[in-house]
C-alpha cells in the first residue's frame, strides 16, 4: 500500500489525558486500573475509567449529542493541540475533503440504559429528553466530531467490536487512495456502560483483579474507556525522521465462533501476514508487537500461537498494554496505534503491566519490563467478537 502520514495524534485513557501523561505512565509502568465503582454495576472487577469525563460540557449547538461517550470524545479532542491541527488541515484541504471514520462498540448506549430505568410507570414510554440518534446510535460519535469541526465530507462509524478503531485505518486508507478525500480523522471512542460490564461478566470473561495479559494465571479482562484520534494524510514530499507512517494493513475474519477466537489463531495470523505483505516487510523487520492481549485464557493463547507461527519462538519483543489501560474495546485499536506511534518516536517498548508469571505454554518474547531502544517498525493487533481481525504496521519515516 501507499504509506500514509499520521500528521497529528492524541489519546486519553485511564493512564493519562494526552500524550505526555500517557508516555509518563508507560515509562513508570503505571496501571490506571481501579476497583469498579461504575454506577449500577455491583461487580467484583477492575475498570480503567477516565477522570473528569462527566465535567465536560458540550457546545450549545451540539447539546443534543450530550452523553458520556461524546463528552469523552470532546475531552480527547482537546488534548495535544489536536483540535487546532484539524482546523489547520481543514483550511488546507477543505471541509468536503476531510473524512471522519471513528470506531466504537457501544457509543452512548449508556443513555438508553439510563432511559430504560426512567420509563413512564404507566405507558412504559422513554423519557422525553432521551435522544436515540445523537447518543445511542453507533454513528453518534462520528456525527458529533463532524459537527465539532463543521466538516462536510464523508463520515461513518466502524463498529466491529474490539477491532473497530483499527479497521478505521483500513477504511480511511481506501478512501484516500480512491481520491474521495485528502485527509481523515480516524480514531476510536468507547466509554464504560452496563452493557459491556454485565455482558462480559455473563460470559465469565471479567477478571476479579487488574488484568494480567499472557500470565499463566490470567483469568479475564478489565474493561477500560478511551478516546484516541489520529489525523491521517498522504505522505508529503519532505518528512521529519521522527514522523510516523501507517505502512501496512491486514484484515481477516475467523469464520469460527461469535465470542471465541479460532483456537490456533488462524484469522489473527492471516491479518498479521497481510499487514506485513501490504507493508512490504518481512517478520524480522518488525521491532515490537503491541499485542491484542486481552488477558482471557483463550484469546492470549490463540494470539500467541499466531505470533509464534509467523515470527518464531521467543523472537520479536511484544507486550499488551491492556494491563495499564484496560481493554478499551472499540477504542483499543486507535489507543494502541497511538502507543505504537509513541514507541516509534521515543524508542520505548513498554513492558506489560500486572503480569507476574509468564505462561510457559506461549512461546512469545513477552516484555516484562520496559525496553529503551530505537524501533523502526511496530505491528499492532486488534481482534474482536464475531471473529473480526485487524493488524496495522507503523514505521518511523527515517
Amino acid at each position, binding site marked *: 500500500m501507499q504509506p500514509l502520514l499520521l500528521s497529528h495524534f492524541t489519546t486519553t485513557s485511564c493512564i493519562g489525558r494526552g500524550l505526555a501523561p500517557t508516555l509518563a505512565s508507560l515509562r513508570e509502568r503505571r496501571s490506571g486500573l481501579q476497583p469498579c465503582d461504575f454506577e449500577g454495576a455491583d461487580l467484583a472487577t477492575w475498570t480503567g475509567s477516565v477522570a473528569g469525563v462527566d465535567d465536560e460540557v458540550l457546545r450549545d449547538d451540539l447539546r443534543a449529542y450530550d452523553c458520556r461517550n461524546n463528552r469523552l470524545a470532546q475531552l480527547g479532542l482537546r488534548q495535544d493541540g489536536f483540535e487546532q491541527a484539524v482546523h489547520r488541515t481543514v483550511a488546507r484541504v477543505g471541509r468536503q475533503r476531510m473524512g471522519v471514520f471513528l470506531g466504537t462498540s457501544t457509543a452512548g448506549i449508556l443513555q438508553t*440504559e439510563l432511559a*430504560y430505568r426512567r420509563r413512564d410507570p404507566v405507558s412504559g414510554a*422513554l423519557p422525553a429528553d432521551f435522544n436515540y440518534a445523537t447518543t445511542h446510535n453507533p454513528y453518534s460519535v462520528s456525527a458529533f466530531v463532524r459537527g465539532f469541526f463543521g466538516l462536510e465530507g464523508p463520515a*461513518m462509524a466502524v463498529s466491529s467490536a474490539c477491532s473497530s478503531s483499527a479497521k478505521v485505518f483500513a*477504511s480511511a486508507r481506501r478512501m484516500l487512495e480512491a481520491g*474521495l478525500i485528502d485527509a481523515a480523522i480516524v480514531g476510536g471512542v468507547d466509554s464504560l456502560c452496563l452493557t459491556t460490564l454485565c455482558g462480559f461478566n*455473563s460470559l465469565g470473561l471479567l477478571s476479579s483483579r487488574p488484568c494480567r495479559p499472557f500470565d499463566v494465571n490470567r483469568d479475564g479482562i478489565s474493561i477500560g474507556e478511551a478516546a484516541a484520534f489520529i489525523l491521517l494524510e498522504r505522505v*508529503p514530499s519532505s518528512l521529519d525522521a521522527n514522523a510516523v507512517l501507517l505502512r501496512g494493513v491486514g484484515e481477516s475474519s475467523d469464520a469460527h465462533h461469535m465470542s471465541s477466537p479460532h483456537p490456533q489463531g488462524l484469522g489473527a495470523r492471516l491479518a498479521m501476514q497481510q499487514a506485513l505483505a501490504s507493508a512490504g516487510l518481512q517478520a524480522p523487520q518488525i521491532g515490537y508487537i503491541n499485542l491484542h492481549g486481552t488477558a482471557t485464557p483463550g484469546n492470549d493463547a490463540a494470539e500467541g500461537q499466531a505470533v509464534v507461527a509467523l515470527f518464531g519462538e521467543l523472537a520479536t519483543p511484544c507486550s499488551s498494554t491492556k494491563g495499564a489501560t484496560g481493554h478499551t474495546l472499540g477504542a483499543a485499536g486507535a489507543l494502541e496505534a497511538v502507543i505504537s506511534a509513541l514507541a516509534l518516536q521515543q524508542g520505548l517498548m513498554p513492558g506489560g503491566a500486572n503480569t507476574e508469571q509468564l505462561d510457559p505454554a506461549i512461546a512469545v518474547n513477552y516484555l516484562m519490563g520496559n525496553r529503551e531502544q530505537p524501533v523502526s517498525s511496530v505491528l499492532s493487533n486488534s481482534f474482536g467478537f*464475531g471473529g473480526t481481525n485487524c493488524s496495522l504496521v507503523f514505521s518511523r519515516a527515517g
Partner: protein
Amino acid sequence: MTPLSPASPAPLVVYIDGVGLLGPGIDHWEEGRQQLAGLAPARRQKTVLPAPAALPPAERRRAGAMVKLALAVGLEALQAAGLDAAQVPSVFASSGGDGLNCHEMCMALASPEKFISPTRFHNSVHNAASGYWGIATGSMATSSVLCAYDGSFAAGWLEAVAQAVVDGVPVLLLAYDTDYPEPLRSVRPVPDTFGVALVLSPQRSARSLARCTLHGDACLTGDPADQLADPVLEPLRRGIPAARSLPLLRAVATRQAGRVVLDYLDGLQLALDIAPCA
C-alpha cells in the same frame, strides 16, 4: 506541507453483478425488480424472513432477525454473481443493531438482577450479522461493519466502491435494518425489516447488470435524493434506512441510464451515474 494528491482523481467504476433483496412485500430481487419496473404491483405485506439454513444448528437457534435478513440477501446476491463467499470481502451497513435484542438487553439491565445471557450480549454487537456470515459461509475474507444512521446505505456504498476499485476485487455490500419494539419504536420508528445486497465488481463480467460511475470530486452533492412515484415503495424508502437504496435499484430494474442521487448524511447526498450493461 503539500500532500501528493492525485491531480484529478480518476472516476471510480464498479459493475453490479448480483442483487439480493428482501423487505415488506418483496421476497427476493426478481419480485422487487418487477415492482420497481412497474411490471407488478407493490404489496403491503410484512417482511417474511427465511430460516437461516446455511448456519450450523447451534448458531441457527441463536440467530435473530438481522442475521436471517443479512444471510438471505447476501447469499442471493452472491449466487446471482456466481461467486463463492470464501473469496469475497464484505461490507455490512446497518443504521442500528438488532432492535428486539437491544430492547431485551436494556430491559434486563434496568431490572435489579441486570442479568443478560451470553447469547444476548454477543448478538448485541453491531457486527453480529458479519460474524454469523463468516460462520455460515466459512469466509475468512475481511468484513467491514459500518453505521451512518439514516445514511448507512450510502456510507456502505462508498466503502464498498472504494474497496472494489482500490483493492481490485469484487466486494459484497449488505445494508439491512430491523424494526424496534416499543418503547424504542417511538424514538426510532423503523416500521419493518428490509435488506439489500449488491455484488460490486471492478471488472465487467457476463453477469454484470449495470455500470456505476462515481466522480470522486463531485459525488457529494446538495441536490435532493431521488424519490419513487409508487405510493407503496416511496414510504418504504423514507421509513427504512436500508431502503434509501431503492432509487439505485429502480435504475437497475428499469435499465435506465442517468444520474441517481441517494440520501447520505444531514444535508449531503451521494450522486452516481448508472448505465445498463447490454
